[in-house]
C-alpha cells in the first residue's frame, strides 16, 4: 500500500486511544484526554501522514529518520487544550521534501518541532515546517539544529502564520546551522506571517562556520583541530538524543560519531 507506515510503536495508558487508517493518507486518530508517545522509525519513500488529535490530549511524535525520504508530508490538527511535540532526528542520506503543517485550531493549544539534521557527502535536505495559529492563545516553537558538511545542503523554511483575531498567539522560530566547510550550504527562511496585532512572535537564525574562539579554547588545551571541530559539532546535534529512548539515543550517538 502506497502510504503504509511500516513500523510504529506507541506508549499510552489505553491501547485503544490510537487508531491507524491506511487510505490515501495514513491517518492516526488520537482520542480525547489521551497522552501518547509515538515512535515512527520507518517510512516508505513517499508518505502522507496525518494526525488528528482529540481535545485535551498530548501527542509526542518521535521520528528517527535513517532511510531516504523523497516526499514526506505530515499534517497535524491540534484542538483546544491539546499539545503536539514532534522530535525529528534526521541522519538519512536524502530528504527531498519534508513538509509539516501543524494547525493550531483551538485555544490553549500548543505545538513544537525540534529538529536535528546532518547533511553530509553531498546530501541535500529540504524541510518546510509550518504552523497555522488559527485562533488566539496558541503557542508554537520551531527549534532546529543542523550541520552541513562535505559540499552538502540544508534548507529550512519555517513559516508561522498568525491569523486575524488570533489574539495572544505566541510563535517562536530558532534555526542554527553550522557549515563545516566552504563548499557546504545552508538556507534558512524563518518567516512570520502576522495578521493580528496582539501577539508575541520572534524568530532567530544563525548560519556560520564554527566559532573561532570556541575552536581556539579547545586547541589551547591540546585538542587537535579535527577533534575540536567534532566535539563542537557533536554538541550541536547530540542534544536531540535526550528525547529518545536509550536504545535509539545510543543509535543516534553512534551515527553522529561515525560521521566525524
Amino acid at each position, binding site marked *: 500500500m502506497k502510504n503504509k507506515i511500516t513500523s510504529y510503536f506507541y506508549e499510552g495508558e489505553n491501547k485503544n486511544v490510537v487508531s491507524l487508517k491506511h487510505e490515501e493518507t495514513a491517518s492516526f486518530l488520537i482520542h480525547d484526554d489521551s497522552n501518547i508517545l509515538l515512535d515512527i522509525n520507518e517510512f516508505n519513500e513517499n508518505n502522507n501522514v496525518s494526525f488528528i488529535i482529540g481535545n485535551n490530549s498530548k501527542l509526542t511524535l518521535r521520528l528517527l529518520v535513517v532511510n531516504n525520504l523523497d516526499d514526506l508530508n505530515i499534517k497535524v490538527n491540534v484542538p483546544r487544550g491539546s499539545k503536539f511535540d514532534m522530535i525529528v532526528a534526521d541522519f538519512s542520506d536524502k530528504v527531498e521534501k519534508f513538509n509539516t503543517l501543524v494547525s493550531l485550531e483551538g485555544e490553549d493549544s500548543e505545538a513544537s518541532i525540534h529538529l536535528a539534521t546532518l547533511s553530509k557527502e553531498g546530501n541535500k535536505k529540504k524541510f518546510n515546517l509550518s504552523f497555522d495559529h488559527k485562533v488566539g492563545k496558541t503557542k508554537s516553537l520551531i527549534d532546529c539544529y543542523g550541520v552541513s558538511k562535505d559540499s552538502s545542503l540544508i534548507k529550512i523554511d519555517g513559516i508561522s502564520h498568525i491569523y486575524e483575531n488570533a489574539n495572544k498567539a505566541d510563535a517562536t522560530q530558532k534555526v542554527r546551522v553550522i557549515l563545516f566547510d566552504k563548499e557546504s550550504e545552508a538556507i534558512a527562511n524563518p518567516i512570520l506571517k502576522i495578521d493580528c496585532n496582539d501577539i508575541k512572535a520572534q524568530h*532567530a537564525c544563525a548560519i556560520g562556520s564554527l*566559532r573561532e574562539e570556541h575552536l*581556539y*579554547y579547545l*586547541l589551547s*588545551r591540546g585538542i587537535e583541530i579535527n577533534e575540536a571541530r567534532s*566535539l563542537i559539532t*557533536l*554538541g550541536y546535534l547530540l*542534544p536531540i538524543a535526550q528525547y529518545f529512548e536509550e536504545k535509539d539515543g545510543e543509535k543516534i550517538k553512534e551515527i553522529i560519531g561515525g560521521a566525524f
Partner: protein
Amino acid sequence: MKSLKIKNLHVEVEGKEILKGVNLTINEGEILALLGPNGHGKSTLLAAIMGNPRYKVTKGEIILDDKDVLKMSVDERSKAGLFLAFQNPSEIPGVVSADFFKGAINAHRDNKIKLFEFYRSLETACKEVNLPFDMVNRNLNDGFSGGEKKRNEILQMILLNPNIAMLDEIDSGLDVDAINTVSECIVKQNREKNTGFLVISHYARLFDLIHPSKAAVMVNGRIVTEGDSSLISKIDKEGYEWIEKELGISIKKEDQQSMNKVSIGVCATKEVLKNEK
C-alpha cells in the same frame, strides 16, 4: 631547567601594534607577576604566547626549551607544556565538560587514560578547586558563574600539569574564599610540580597569597622594569605614576574610542560605526 624566553616580541591586532619589543624570561618553578596599567599589552602577550590567531607576531622570538614556539600550532603549544587560564573562558554549549577534559588529557598522553584513573583525577581536582563533581556533566562553562569559570580554568591546569602556566586575571570575579582556594592550588602546583607561572593581576591580595619570586611591569607594550616582589608592594601603594617620574616614560592612556562593530538580532540589525554618536 625549562624556561620560556620571549625576545624582542612585536605583536599587532587588526593592524595596530600592541607589543613593541617585549623581552621576558620565565623559568620553571618561578612565579612571575606581570603588572601594568589597563590596555598596555599584558593579555596580548599571553594570547600571543598561546597562539591566538587574532594576534599577529610581526617580529621576535618565543622559545620554550630551545624549541621555537612560533612554529607550533596552538594545540602543539599546549602539548609542549604551555597553559593559559583565560580571563573570559568561552562558553561552549553542547560540549560536555567531562568529554572535553578527557580529550584534553588524552592529547597530552601517548596512551589513553583509563576511565577509573580519569574519574579519580577529576574528583581530586574538583575537590581542590572546590567545584561540585556533577559540574563535569554540564556543558563547558555554559551557564557557569564568573567564579565557577575561573575555578574551572584552575581545574584544567591541575589536570594538564603544564611546565609554564599563564594566568590572566584569574582572581577577577572571585570572592575572598575562592581567591584563597585558587591561590592554594597555584602554590601547590608550583611547589609540588615545579610549574612556572606568569600571573597577571591588578590586586596585591592574590600576590600576597602566591608569593611571586619576580615581578615585571608592562607599559606601552614593553617591559619597562623588573624586580622582586617589592615592586608589587610599591605599585600597590603608589600606582604607576612613579614610572613616569623615575623612568621618564610617558604612560599612554587606554584607548577608549574604539568600539567594535556589532549587529543585534536578525530582524533589527544595527551597525555601530566608529565615531557614531
